[in-house]
């Protein structure tokens, strides 16, 4: 893959906020950055909604671990955000060091998705961690789940199949020994079979098991349903995907129990 290759990834951004800073997403981002020799960036967004909320006189925070309520104000919220930012920065640096790459980290204040999506114009890859409310269920000691059972789901636009999206998804699948499901967004049913052939050919070089369902994805709800049905471990979306906007990312994050990658 040379520098002119459309599949080439030069910069990777991990979008982080209070709802999302899971190490698994961070690790994958770092590994991809190492593989592609890409710039590894972290963006922590201080959610202005939270700060506004903290200004309200009656607000209380219910702690996740214990369910205990405690009053919050702007000062304590800002302090907590700073602490959180520091924490994710350290996590990012440790993760980068583990794969022997450098990283950069910045903090912005605003709406989380808006800031992150704004950043997508300057980077090739944006990763959002899972926002599932469910705490990670720690299986009994020694229970080791086989990674391959949950696939990577890539979503590409039928009109312009993103080679980068496919390549990145295949790379994630290969690295995590997962299968790859490619969902084609839009386009007529009759071209799906043709597209599937093309996609398989595109991914032939990667050692991943590829499935391309014949039925195209027409709506965001269908996409969510399909990803849920496949129990997607990762969902990678091409930015050319017609379904994609700020609200769509928000919906995907809220409904899918996995990290989202915008390519």
């Amino acid at each position, binding site marked *: 893959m040379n520098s002119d290759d459309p599949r080439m990834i030069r910069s990777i951004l991990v979008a982080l906020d209070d709802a999302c800073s899971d190490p698994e997403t961070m690790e994958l981002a770092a590994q991809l950055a190492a593989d592609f020799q890409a710039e590894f960036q972290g963006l922590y967004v201080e959610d202005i909604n939270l700060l506004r909320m903290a200004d309200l006189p009656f607000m209380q*925070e219910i702690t996740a671990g214990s369910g205990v309520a405690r009053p919050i104000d702007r000062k304590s919220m800002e302090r907590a955000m700073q602490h959180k930012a520091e924490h994710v920065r350290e996590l990012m640096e440790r993760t980068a060091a583990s794969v022997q790459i450098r990283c950069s980290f910045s903090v912005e204040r605003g709406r989380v998705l808006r800031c992150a999506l704004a950043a997508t114009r300057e980077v090739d890859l944006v990763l959002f961690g899972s926002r599932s409310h469910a705490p990670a269920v720690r299986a009994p000691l020694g*229970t080791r789940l086989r990674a391959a059972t949950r696939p990577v789901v890539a979503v590409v636009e039928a009109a312009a199949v993103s080679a980068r999206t496919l390549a990145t998804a295949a790379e994630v699948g290969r690295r995590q020994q997962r299968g790859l499901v490619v969902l084609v967004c839009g386009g007529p049913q009759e071209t799906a079979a043709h597209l599937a052939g093309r996609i398989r050919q595109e991914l032939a070089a990667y050692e991943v098991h590829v499935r391309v369902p014949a039925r195209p994805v027409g709506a965001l709800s269908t996409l969510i349903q399909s990803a849920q049905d496949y129990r997607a471990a990762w969902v990678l979306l091409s930015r050319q995907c017609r379904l994609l906007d700020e609200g769509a990312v928000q919906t995907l994050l809220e409904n899918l129990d996995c990290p989202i990658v915008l390519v």
Partner: protein
Amino acid sequence: MKLSPSELRWRCTPDHLAFDTTDDLEDLQQILGQPRALDAVQFGIGIRRDGYNMFVLGPPGLGKRTTVNLFLSEKAATEATPDDWCYVNNFEQAYKPWALRLPPGRGVRLQRDMAQLVERLKTTIPSTLQMEEHQSRIQEIEHEAKERHNQAFKALADRALARGIQLVRTPGGYAMAPVRNGEVIGPEEYEKLTLEERQEIEDAVKELQEELKEVIERIPRWRMETRDKIKELNRQATRLAIAHLLSELREDYVQLPHVLEYFDALEKDVIEHAEEFQPQEEMPANILGVPTAGQPNFHRYRVNLLVDHGKTRGAPVVTENHPSYQNLMGRAEHESRMGTLVTQFTLIKPGALHRANGGYLVLDALKLLQQPFAWEALKRALNSKELRIESLGESLSLISTVTLEPEPIPLDAKVILVGDRMLYYMLYQFDRDFAELFKVAADFDEQMDRTPENCLLFARFIATMARQEKYRPFDKQAIARVIEESARLAGDSEKLSVSMQSIANLLREADYWASTDGAATVTAAHVERAIDKQVFRSDRVRTHVYEQIQRGTVMIDTAGACAGQVNGLSVIDLGNFSFGQPSRITATVRIGKGEVIDIEREVELGGAIHSKGVLILSSFLATRFAQNRPLSLSASLVFEQSYGHVDGDSASVAELCALLSALSGVPIRQELAVTGSVNQHGRVQPIGGVNQKIEGFFDVCRARGLTGDQGVLIPQANVKHLMLRPDVVEAVAAGRFQVHAVETVDEAIALLTGVPAGAADAAGTYPPGTINCLVAARVNELFEIRRQLSQPGQDEAKP
């Protein structure tokens, strides 16, 4: 009675030995001269009843251990091989390991089978748990769990949104924030709301927060349920996976119900801890050799083979040379982990009793008693008939650390203690358990009768030993000399010593001297040299003592005559060597109240027996010379130049003679020495060490020159004990030394003074000029003086 040379030493005549060398003799298959002990040993080993343990007693060097081992090896070979014993983990109470009994050799198999099982489990269980179906099922459970979480939060979020409240994530958890058009209401906007609207929002937030709390509080329970579901799934899969592995083992051990019970418990534990068989990658198995916490511990499936009789044939015979508490009873060792002492069932080590279980344990009684707590522990085990491994440090509160209480093992072993007689009698006297636990005593004798048959057996014993130890053949003269030495060791010309150690040493050294001569056969000369060299190596003290006598430092006269002074004889025992030492005994007499003062006793250098002898003298004097009136004398007796402890009554004849001489004023010939004890009637009684005593005086006289007048008086009863050195016998034969046997003190005093003792007539009067007459006169004189002094008005005249 003057003894002839033939009475001074028994000679073993080689002509009576019907062979030339030991090569002509058959091996001796029996134990020499111990019929009583052998009978007891056979009985003790044969009887298999409670309390019939055995104490083999006798002085060292009699072949007690050899005899016991010989009988034990024969008996044990005919008996059944006992079972193996293992300790395995108690999965419910790890500090109480289970004891498993298996037929001989099966312990090793079980150990191997369990090791193989664990290795198989390490591959079978992970592959089972990694199977697609199983993984899929786990993911379903996880998915369900996540769904349940998300559903709960989503439902709450939806309810909240319906009331214009949004569930938001905060750095520390969650919050319920009022929203308008998707944006959280700011404080300015909030202030613009009416009081009712604000109240409504606050009430809604409050209620929703309570609901949120409930959801969060349910999370740990859900998480636990999910974990339990996964665990149960793993259990089911594992149970199925290991069933066939264990069924094979169960078939192999179907005859051993305890082992099957163990398999059941093991199966349960494996199923319970199936996850531990999964490969662990997250952390190293150990750090600096210390197992990391959380790492699987497969040690608990090991088998600690405590006693393996796989290669044992018959019952075991175990000899424990260091019978400490732990070596006897076994122990649970500890290992240090990060500064803490820990133990587990694999660290249980067997004791001698474990190894001897089902057979025999031979112990040195003295060593056993010298070891703290060992004797009590042995008795406890024999009484309870079980082997219980207890930490000594723990029971004495010396250390406080993790310890084990292994299941006791039934004990069925016969214990054989080997020790000296004193120990046996003391235990019998002072230990109330001893008689119950050690009902059989095998008492080994030190000597046997010197009969022609026994002499031949002795010769065969020498031949057997010579062959076993690869000595040169002994010719019959050499054997005769060894047999003579045996009689000498017995201290009795009519007995033979069966001290195998001494005889073995003599044979070994004689063979050595033969080798230095390049001789093919050991001769009498080699035996003689071996004896001489043994003496030479040991007689430094004797040489020193005799030198002191020779130089006059220790004053012993061997010529002339002196009243109230006699040469007594004592024996100095150095353990491996003893010799006779002449001592000057003196007596003084004065007026008194009939007491004979033993100066040794007065200064606490005399023993009780010596004092008894002196008191007998008082009684003799009073009975013979003052039956009808008070004995009005006071006498003092002393061992001159004696600076150590004196005991025994073998000098009482000498002391009495010194007293009679002092009373009669008749001098005693100093070229004679006398030994023997005396009773109240003046009869001379036998003493010990007669040979050494005669030789001691002989050596002193020889150093000064033998005159022919010098000699020793011994009790007649000791004549049979004479086995004097050949040089003494030769001197007597040449008329240069004398040995007299006496039966009464009258004979002794007559020989010592050259004056007849004199026998009393019917009126109790002694012939004039005799010793007794002179003594009676002096006693009478002292009485008269005392009587006069005791008259009224004579007090002032007392000196």
